[in-house]
């Protein structure tokens, strides 16, 4: 199985991290702002990656990350710790990103005539990322665009899995679906990307 990424190498590290998160969550519940700083610092990149890959641009992704952590702060009191903090956070970010996209893409449900404006409003989607790299920019943009054309369910599963250290099991936990479903969604997502990126990746 050449090239297959090591997916669950550091189960022990994962467990340690989860334990640490749990401890900080307890402290945060008591209002410890440093505990929150730590949680934020350790999870913000992952949250950003999820949001970015679901939304396709950095500005919206950062907005979603901020909202997600605000939601964490508001909901921490009722967080019972039945899932890990990471799982909970990823779930929040995923929903916030999808919600964001839905609100922005709203077209009046009672659209007037058949030929009235076809494009969804996509008010924020096309903004350039703040640090647009020149080098592999074309491929990256192609990937971002292609991702947007994968159906939501499949895209979410793939985006979560593409994060470092995520296994099918963990993706299944975040989304509340079975591992088999995760697998088939990832399969479909990648097939679709393959079709869409045929010219870029050969």
């Amino acid at each position, binding site marked *: 199985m050449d090239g297959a990424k090591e997916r669950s190498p550091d189960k022990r590290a994962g467990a340690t991290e989860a334990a640490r998160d749990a401890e900080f969550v307890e402290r945060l519940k008591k209002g410890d702002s440093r505990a929150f700083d730590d949680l934020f610092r350790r999870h913000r990149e992952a949250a950003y990656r999820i949001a970015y890959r679901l939304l396709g641009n950095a500005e919206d992704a950062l907005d979603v990350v901020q909202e997600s952590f605000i939601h964490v702060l508001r909901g921490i009191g009722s967080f019972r710790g039945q899932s890990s903090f990471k799982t909970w956070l990823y779930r929040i970010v995923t929903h916030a990103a999808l919600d964001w996209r839905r609100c922005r893409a709203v077209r*009046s449900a*009672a659209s007037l005539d058949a030929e009235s404006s076809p494009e969804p409003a996509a008010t924020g*989607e096309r903004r350039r990322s703040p640090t647009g790299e020149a080098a592999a920019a074309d491929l990256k943009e192609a990937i971002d665009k292609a991702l947007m054309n994968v159906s939501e369910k499949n895209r979410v599963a793939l985006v979560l899995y593409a994060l470092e250290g995520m296994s099918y099991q963990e993706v299944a936990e975040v989304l509340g679906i079975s591992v088999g479903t995760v697998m088939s969604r990832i399969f479909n997502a990648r097939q679709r990307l393959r079709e869409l990126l045929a010219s870029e990746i050969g």
Partner: protein
Amino acid sequence: MSQATRWYLATTVLLAGLVCWLAANAPAAETESETRISILAIHATNEEKPHIDPALKPLKDALARSGYNSFRLVAKERRAVGTGDTWERPMLEDYALRVIPTEIAEDRVTLTYAWVHYEKDEQGRRIARVLQQVPMTLIKGKYFVSGGWRLKKGALVGAFAAE
């Protein structure tokens, strides 16, 4: 009737009463740093048979002066917006209405609203062009009407209110 059932019943009735009361009054969550804005998107046309959506009756007087005779409520949304926040609500055909509250008092809201239109620039990128921008103060609880933007057929009218 068991103790538990009685308890459930009492709780249900109490909660029902509480929710009713909340529904009738301004929600407790609202503070002076936030106001509930309602935005309507209305399609105005001239038809042989004039028709106005029953929901739009309260706005009839304003709409009637527009020169159109038929009005259809196309979208309606209500959302809490804080001072300094921008709510941009897509309307019809690439138009959008932005509402930005700047000051919220007990009975009125100072805000700026702007009509924007989404178009493609020379590079083919999608940009928002501001058509009209109006800082104003509006009494809470009443709809302000602004519109007249030409559509493929008829015109786009917006209405918004703050609470």
